[in-house]
């Protein structure tokens, strides 16, 4: 339990996917202009991250690299995982479009954009690279998603103010957002060591 909490909190705060691992920068800059869309996007990302982990972990462990050592197709993981994620996202989109139109209205627009979000492929591959078991992988994916949400929500608050601020003309738009993201990232660096102290 303690280890699970350590994985969860380090994925949210210390090894934040956006601010310290640099994954998912495109949506981070792209949908952080408004808090509501930032929230919708991060809910969708968290859901896809957890579900893709639940799908890809067994595929890797039981099909690509089975424990009996009969074969080792570990090198196919990038190819397999991206296909699984793309298929899953497509399927979810079709299903909620058909059965849950209100949910589709609020989350559907983010779904097709998630396939190429590198944080999703990143978390599934990191779970394998870190040799997590299924439970740890799911917790890690959940933490990564929640960390994405924390970063996106915090940043959208900063962003709403920057849009109104009088920045130098050459910094208008993306450059100012990137510099502000740097400051937010610096503040997240303050969480370093927190998890070791709490759960170590």
């Amino acid at each position, binding site marked *: 339990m303690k280890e699970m909490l350590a994985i969860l909190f380090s994925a949210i705060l210390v090894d934040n996917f956006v*601010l*310290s*691992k*640099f*994954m*998912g*920068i*495109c*949506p981070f*800059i*792209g*949908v952080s*202009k*408004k808090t509501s*869309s930032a929230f919708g*996007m991060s809910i969708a990302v968290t859901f896809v991250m957890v579900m893709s982990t639940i799908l890809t972990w067994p595929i890797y462990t039981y099909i690509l690299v089975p424990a009996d050592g009969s074969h080792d197709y570990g*090198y*196919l*993981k*990038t*190819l397999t995982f*991206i*296909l699984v994620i*793309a298929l899953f996202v497509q399927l979810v989109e079709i299903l909620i479009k058909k059965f849950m139109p209100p949910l589709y209205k609020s989350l559907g*627009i*983010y779904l*097709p*954009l*998630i*396939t*190429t*979000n*590198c944080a999703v*492929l*990143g978390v599934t*591959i*990191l779970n394998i*690279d870190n040799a997590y078991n299924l439970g740890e992988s799911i917790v890690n994916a959940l933490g990564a998603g929640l960390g994405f949400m924390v970063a996106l929500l915090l940043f959208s608050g900063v962003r709403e103010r920057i849009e109104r601020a009088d920045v*130098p*003309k*050459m*910094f*208008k*738009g*993306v*450059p*100012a*957002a*990137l*510099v502000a*993201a*740097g*400051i937010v*990232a*610096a503040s997240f*660096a303050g969480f370093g060591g927190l998890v070791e102290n709490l759960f170590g």
Partner: protein
Amino acid sequence: MSWSKEFFKGIIKENPTLVMLLGTCPTLAMTSQAVNALGMGIATTFVLLGSCIVISLLKNIIPSQVRLPCYIVIIAGFVTLVSFLLQVYLPELYSVLGVFLSLITVNCIILGRAEAFASKNTVSRSIADALGMGIGFTLALLLVGSVREILGMGSWFGIDLTFGVLEPILLFATPAGGFMVFGFMVAVVNKLSHYQISKKKMGCEGCPGGCASCTSGCSEKKEGND
């Protein structure tokens, strides 16, 4: 239109990183040192070149409804190839690039060029385009990486520049420094191109999830954006 035009547009005028703002994740993650930036740039260029050649060759065979999954499989294949090569010949670089080597698969520059160029043009023009874009990406990464390594670690390609006197500014080697250096660089490019970019730039960068989504549904992108 000559192939040299296709080649040079990727380096300056339509530089994928600094002008089009594509592939920001590796640009930030792999640039704490110049040598890693160069390695990442070359690996991406190789994948870009390989997949653009294959996609351009297969452009009449791949049905347009399933073209994006097909492109992704081709790209992922080349990524696997590159990771094999690096694992054997440059194991050090392989371990530094780590998960970002696999993530070349979802680099929007590659899918973007495949969709926007290679699937509509001849092989030779696709090669020129892919090489230009790849070199443009590599140079931009090298630039960000050099600034960050010189300021953050006081060295360039591992050569010490502090002479034991100057103290490097550690901030620039951290993720926070990455965001800031890249932000300043985009600002400079903005200035040099007379603010042209800030009007049209939101293109693929603003499109969350990168180019695949841009190409698959631009209307959705716009909704997601505002």
